[in-house]
């Protein structure tokens, strides 16, 4: 049995509003399926289930109330047909057996432990079985690293729980999943009394104004954190796009409007491919170190009509062929503007790409979206006199910039990345 908690969908989210239950109590849910629609300060998001099971009951009904991240929204039970076993108590307190056995457990990884006297069979157990060939590893020094189970670590990152402040109830004081979820719940209860009383209904204009203010506040929080915590360094280079644009024009000329591509897709694909070569720029800064991502999920900065922006993820952009990438981008932009993004799109981006060229800007020196490691910016495509082989010729060029986290990479690496980007854009047919 698992509680479905209000997830943290990005560094700038602290609260959300339940718009709609997509699944009804009793329905089967597969991991990754959309279970509810949540309104964040920035957008409506379709939230995907964290675990498979059955939606047993909902704890919160859709409404106007703002709920803090970590609020339990529903209970997800075992797979259909298997009723969850009744529990003495539902809170994840340490089980009674755990405490007395704790000391004797130093060797638990070495062997099936001896049974506690109460339940041990009088005659042989298999304890001697394993004493022989694998001596226990020496204990790790206290304070060297927090003991946190992998799933607890991942969940803490999702819910924004600070592990350092948590007591662990697992063996050897390990912080386990239940500890993280209990802490998230406790944080919610603490914050509960601060909730303002529901105000009088607002007019449409006031609502729009309030919405704009919330979008601004969310962006303000994330960007202030970025500038406070991330030592940015900035690099820029001018890339000749003449070949790429000619290739694209020829490609588009053979196709009806619906199958044509935008040059932005070439830029996105080239960024993804260049990140493959320079993974130090792709991933997250967490708990004092860089956590590089295996996949390249490009966060595409999309301005919203009426103000604000979101940067949802284009998953596995490095692996998609250009027409497929175009289709996904089109879908993502449309859904971002219609307010129907999915939670994985809000949280998975490993790097952000932004372009302000459409409004005439020549170069963007962007602010990294925490906890990502880098942001790639593109300006306007302009025709410039360009010297090649000692002769001046008009070429179509764009300024590409990189903002990167100096804790995770150095300028030399950033320069290599921009160089790779340039090289890849000279061979559009192989993108």
């Amino acid at each position, binding site marked *: *049995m698992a509680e479905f908690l209000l997830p943290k969908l990005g560094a700038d989210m602290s609260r959300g509003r339940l718009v709609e239950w997509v699944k009804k109590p009793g329905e089967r849910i597969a*991991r990754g399926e959309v279970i509810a629609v949540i309104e964040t300060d920035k957008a409506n998001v379709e939230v995907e289930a964290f*675990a*498979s*099971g059955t939606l047993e009951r909902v704890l919160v009904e859709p409404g106007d109330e703002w709920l803090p991240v970590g609020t339990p929204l529903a209970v997800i039970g*075992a*797979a259909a047909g*298997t009723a*969850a*076993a009744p*529990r*003495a108590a539902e809170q994840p307190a*340490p*089980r*009674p*057996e*755990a405490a007395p*056995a704790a000391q004797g*457990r130093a060797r*638990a*990884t070495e062997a*099936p*432990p*001896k*049974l*506690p006297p109460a*339940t*041990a*069979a009088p*005659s*042989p*157990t*298999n*304890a*001697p*079985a*394993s004493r*022989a*060939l*694998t001596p226990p590893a020496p204990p790790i020094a206290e304070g060297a690293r927090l003991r946190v*189970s*992998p*799933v*607890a*670590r*991942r969940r803490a990152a999702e819910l924004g729980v600070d592990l350092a402040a948590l007591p662990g109830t*697992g*063996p050897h004081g*390990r912080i*386990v*999943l239940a500890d993280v979820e209990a802490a998230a719940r406790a944080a919610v209860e603490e914050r509960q009394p601060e909730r303002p009383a529901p105000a009088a209904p607002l007019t449409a204009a006031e609502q729009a104004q309030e919405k704009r203010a919330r979008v601004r506040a969310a962006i303000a929080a994330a960007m202030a954190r970025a500038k406070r915590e991330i030592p940015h360094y900035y690099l820029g280079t001018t890339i000749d796009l003449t070949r790429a644009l000619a290739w694209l024009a020829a490609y588009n000329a053979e196709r009806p409007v619906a199958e044509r591509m935008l040059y932005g897709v070439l830029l996105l694909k080239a960024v993804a491919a260049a990140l493959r070569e320079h993974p130090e720029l792709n991933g997250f800064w967490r708990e004092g170190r860089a956590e590089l991502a295996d996949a390249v999920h490009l966060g595409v900065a999309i301005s919203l009509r009426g103000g604000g922006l979101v940067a949802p993820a284009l998953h596995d952009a490095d692996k998609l062929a250009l027409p497929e990438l175009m289709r996904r981008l089109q879908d993502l932009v449309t859904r971002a503007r219609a307010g129907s993004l999915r939670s994985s799109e809000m949280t998975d981006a490993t790097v952000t790409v932004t372009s302000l060229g459409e409004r005439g800007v020549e170069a963007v020196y962007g602010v990294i979206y925490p906890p990502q490691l880098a942001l790639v910016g593109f300006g306007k495509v302009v025709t410039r006199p360009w010297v090649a082989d000692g002769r001046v010729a008009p070429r179509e060029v764009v300024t590409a910039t990189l903002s990167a986290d100096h804790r995770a990479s150095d300028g030399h690496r950033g320069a290599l990345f921009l160089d790779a980007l340039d090289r890849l854009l000279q061979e559009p047919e192989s993108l």
Partner: protein
Amino acid sequence: MALGRAAVRRAGEDVTLAAYGASVHKALAAADALAAEQIDAEVLDLRTLRPLDVGALVASVAKTHRAVVIDEMWRTGSFAGEIAAILMEQAFDQLDAPVARVASAEVPMPYAKPLEDAALPSAEGIAAAARALF
């Protein structure tokens, strides 16, 4: 019987007991004992080892976040070790405790029945290994 298709013999939420062959019955007995202590164990019958139903293993651990692997081979070099390694590789982010193994004593299999029982995994040993994960 479908090759490479594991079967959930008992559904549970708190820990996966992965077994094959004769150990499945011992795992079921261990699950009954654990149920009395409010530990809801899932018993996964692997049925075949090659092909191994990795998907079912990972799915079960994604639900329970804990695993005990039971194997009648000697612990050193046992298939249980292989399964533990697979779970570490493919379900690392799902684990809430190290994968535990229950295997046979590293002695030539005794002929006398009581001694043979002592050398093989037991329901009590499986339950104790599961308990130690909480």
